């Protein structure tokens, strides 16, 4: 059953929704940069961004009156935003490694 957002929560609902996507992107950027440059502080910031995303999602669920099976959406969002950037990272590494030319091997290869 659908329970529309309450009048005084329209702004919170919209802002928290925007925050979910923006924190999701910030988490993804920090994660990728942190791994790329092997910078631990960026990885820590990425987890902070994800924590902010969790807060925004909870706020979103409250403002939108998500209940019953709609809570499945909250779980899928939290898992999706956490897992997808990591999966894409692995995919990036794999696709680039498999398509990059291998260093010459055999006699004289390193001469």
């Amino acid at each position, binding site marked *: 059953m*659908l*329970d*529309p*957002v309450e*009048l005084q929560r*329209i*702004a919170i*609902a*919209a*802002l928290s*929704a*925007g925050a*979910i*996507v*923006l924190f*999701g*992107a910030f988490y*993804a*950027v920090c*994660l*990728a*940069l942190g791994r*790329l*440059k092997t910078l631990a502080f960026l990885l820590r910031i990425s987890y902070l961004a994800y924590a902010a995303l969790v807060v925004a999602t909870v706020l979103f669920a409250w403002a*939108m*009156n*998500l209940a019953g*099976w*709609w809570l*499945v*959406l909250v779980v*899928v*969002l939290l898992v*999706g*935003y956490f897992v*997808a*950037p990591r*999966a*894409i*990272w692995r*995919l*990036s*590494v794999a*696709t*680039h490694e498999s*398509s*990059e*030319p291998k260093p010459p091997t055999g006699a004289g290869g390193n001469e």
Partner: protein
Amino acid sequence: MPAEAAMDVGAAVAEDTAVALNTRSLTAGQRLALKYFTVAMVLFVAQMLFGLLAGIQFLYPEFLYGVLDFNVNRMVHINAMIVWMLYGFIGSVYWLVEDEAGVELVGAKLANINFWVLTSAVAVVVVVYLVVQVGPGKQSTIWLINEGREYIEAPRWADIGIVVCMGVFFYTIAGTFMKGRWSGISGTLVLDLIALAGLYLAGMFYTTNLSVDQYWWWWVVHLWVEATWEVLVGCIMAWGLMKTLGARREIVTTWLYIEVALMFGAGILGLGHHYFWIGTPEYWLGIGGFFSALEPIPLVAMVVHAVYDAGRHGFQSSNHPALAWLIAHAFGNFLGAGVWGFIHTLPQINLYTHGTQWTASHGHLAFFGAYATIVIALIYIALQRWRGDVWMSADLPDRGWKWKWSLILLNVGMMGMTIALLIAGYEQSFIERAIGGSTWAAFFEGQTQPWFVQGMQWRMIFGVVMTAGLVLLLWDLLTIGRGETRPAKEVHDPAGPSGAIESGALSRAPV
């Protein structure tokens, strides 16, 4: 002026023109693409002008009343946008097809005739829109004047003509790939063109039940914009990245497949967010809300790939304006489709926002960010070749101020307009929908509130900023690279050999 001096000037102009435009070096498909790009830009101007007029009418409702009514203005504004983007896509496909297939365009003459037929039809349809603004709605008006379906108002005769023209377009593109070589990009592109033309058929028949009618109509509107157009843009982007950055074919093709899978995964059933309030069964609330909410996740995930590639390869660009517009495309798509879409996609809030200026805010940024930007990028790539593969990287003679400022003004104008419309839409959702209960009186009450009126004023101001950006863009497109003698910067993926088919591989003899 003495005759000798006049001759010198004439010779200088001729020499300058020879440097400026190198049409003979283009293939038949590329020359055809330039025609499509030219009409696309003319329609972009039309879109902007009719948009400005419609914006003024929001502030002064009596402005041009009875001469050019708001509903007609709005219709031409939106139709011009759809058609210029389609022209941009068709031009982009014609630009890349021979390069990608490695052979000359199949049916070049037919394709040229097709262009003139399509363009004439578009012109006639617009003239009829403007000349016959009011009148009785009969069966004949559906066939001759206006079919009445928002966004795809073209009369039935034009509908049939569009399908025929798309059929010819498909024949020339698929035929060229069949004669030449196939690739991941071309295979995806051809399959997508079948879907693009096929989906249009869903918007061509009437039923007496409005809910059923709207159900099929959304197939065209949503599945074009959030499925087939996205895939088409993905193909163009993949080819564009190889050309401007020297990205490797294996990588862009792999990511094209992944993008298509992710997009279809959430995008097709995301169609449900249009079915919330048209009388379809209640389960669409759940399906539409759930899958629409997932749509931004692929966009966010792709950020990782962009960071990875940029950091690992340190690409250099052969065409700075094109690259800048490709980057604008990435950000615009993320913000317009991702953020602005998600903030009102669940039925719990969409109940209040659907059809308000909030929707217009999302529509403006999403269309501009996802589609206008990439067509402009492709036009810059085309211009570079047209000028004779000249330098378009850093250190342009005028420091590239025109392309930089046009990029800034167009994007700032669009963002400003988007935020202004969002404020107006928020107020409208609040007063008209949530408090007023969507009554006719509440509709007018909402539009007289200060926030709505001020939002519309700011929208107008930023519309003028965008118009200034468009003027600069057109000026730059006409002049960039003129007189430039340095060859284009060679780019390649530093991590390995470029998978791109070399630009000069194809015979450039006029066809």
